């Protein structure tokens, strides 16, 4: 089993800020828009370097999505930034018509996704955004796991033509991926090979899955861990290959169990390779105020929940 460690903790959104600056340097057509959350989205460095390529929209997210769509018509590559809730549900119709249906090259970048926004509570958290975005035809949906991966993904989506939803979080979490990684949209990342159970995780849950894998190893269970950073298009080959080997799967996401990664995996397996599956996800609930750690525990998103789910699904597979 490959051992993962970290020397520092950083927030994924800072990876977005760093990636945006880099993407801006690589491509003069990259522009950024923000709805009054520059600090939260870590856009300051981009704005300082390219003031004329930044658009402060104010608290008007629908207008931001429309302006971004319009900017693509002149050849620009717009990155919009606000909280995940206001990036998706609030502007679903605008994204649907002016971006997805119109096939505009807009990168909808959303921070503070999931529960771990924490103390602000359910109005500012969102647990439905992956579902909302993956249901839009042509939309690429990415949820990154740490600072380095978010930075790499931000640079990669600038080079990809088409609408993208890039989801990341607020808290400071371990940085455990390679700083010079190549980010391939739609390509799963094998975190650890194993034979007893497949653990498929996305976003903040990847580190939890790594922790769970270590605990499972102590219990004599050899878990295969896959980081699915791109939920749509799903790397179906990687999922099927792993599940053929292990015969059971646990999906892990900081999202409602309805409509997220788990359902994408279940849909694939139900048609290609019916397999026992357990879902580590929020059980059809809104969040609430609390610290990120408290919330992850209360809503069943800790490594211990993954361990339990793995043990349960292995038993089901052996029946």
């Amino acid at each position, binding site marked *: 089993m490959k051992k993962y460690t970290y020397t520092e903790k950083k927030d994924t959104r800072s990876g977005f800020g760093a990636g945006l600056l880099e993407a801006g340097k690589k491509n003069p057509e990259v*522009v950024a828009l923000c709805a009054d959350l520059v600090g939260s989205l870590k856009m300051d460095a981009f704005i300082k370097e390219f003031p*004329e*390529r930044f*658009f402060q*929209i*104010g608290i*008007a997210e*629908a*207008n*931001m*999505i*429309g*302006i*971004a*769509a*319009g*900017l*693509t*018509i*002149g*050849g*620009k590559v*717009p990155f919009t930034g606000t909280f995940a809730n206001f990036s998706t549900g609030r502007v679903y*119709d*605008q994204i*649907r*018509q*002016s971006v997805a*249906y*119109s*096939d*505009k090259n807009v990168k909808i970048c959303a921070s503070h996704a999931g529960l771990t926004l924490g103390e602000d509570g359910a109005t500012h958290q969102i647990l439905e955004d992956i579902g909302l975005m993956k249901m839009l035809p042509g939309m690429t949906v990415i949820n990154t796991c740490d600072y380095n991966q978010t930075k790499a993904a931000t640079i990669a989506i600038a080079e990809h033509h088409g609408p993208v939803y890039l989801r990341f979080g607020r808290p400071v979490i371990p940085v455990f991926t390679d700083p010079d990684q190549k980010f391939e949209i739609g390509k799963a990342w094998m975190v650890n090979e194993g034979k007893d159970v497949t653990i498929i995780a996305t976003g903040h849950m990847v580190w939890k899955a790594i922790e769970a894998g270590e605990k499972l190893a102590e219990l004599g269970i050899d878990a295969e861990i896959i980081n699915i950073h791109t939920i749509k298009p799903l790397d179906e080959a990687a999922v099927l290959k792993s599940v053929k080997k292990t015969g059971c799967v646990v999906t892990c996401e900081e999202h409602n169990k309805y409509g997220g990664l788990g359902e994408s995996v279940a849909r694939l397996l139900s048609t290609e390779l019916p397999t026992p599956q357990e879902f580590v996800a929020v059980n059809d609930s809104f969040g609430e105020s609390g610290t990120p750690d408290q919330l992850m525990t209360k809503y069943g998103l800790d490594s211990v929940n993954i361990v339990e789910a793995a043990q349960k699904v292995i038993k089901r597979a052996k029946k």
Partner: protein
Amino acid sequence: MNQQPQLMKHTINELEDIAAQVRRDIVRMVHACQSGHPGGSLGCADFMTALYFEIMNHSTDFKMDGKGEDLFFLSNGHISPVFYSVLARSGYFEVSELATFRKLNSRLQGHPTTHEGLPGVRIASGSLGQGMSVAIGAAQAKKLNKDHSIIYSLHGDGELQEGQNWEAIMYAPFNKIDNLISTIDYNGQQIDGPTEKVLSLENLQAKFEAFGWHVINSDGNDMDAIVKALHYAKSLTGKGKPILNLMSTQMGYGVDFMMGSHKWHGVAPNDEQLAAALAQLSSTLKDY
């Protein structure tokens, strides 16, 4: 508003003839599929004809980015028949394709879209209230590209009830979007009745001016007046403010029994009504 254009591409009479033909196209298209929105389409036929045949610098060799060209955005997508007719008659695609409007496998969807690759369409519209934002984005891209072309947009008046417009209306003057000429089709009608009864727009001119726009008024069913208004609007670009053309029209203009009533907002004529409508619209181009 007395600016006479230096050199007209067409005479007013020629433009009126084209507009009459566009109106014939509209009623035929809506009749053929027994579906669509003739009222607003007829009301905007003069404006759209003036824009595409006289005012805009555009190329029918369609490129999505439209660099170096004036661009038009239709926000009230339900008046697609007038948009399609003007695009076809300008040469973006064959006039015969108009007969496929709203039919299965057509590029001429009920509401315009880029999804079917129809030349001349740069954004989908139909769900109302989004076009002003898109037009602003396109205008800002022009500025970044140092492209001195103009962005035109058209909006229904009832459409202004959608809140996103007011986000955009606030944004454009603050950001000195002065390469944008937006037109409101001010016909006072929406599906459920007169705007005054559904949700009054009150004093639109004062509202836009309060937000920082330069507002001009025009009669949208008088070709000479429209051409003059649009030339005047062009002369106001580049002066730090977005321009609003508050254009009075009559829904259904040109077909007497459709005029002035919201009842023809989204209703197709039957065979007799089609014949009656065509009889009122002189067959000027004699090709459809």
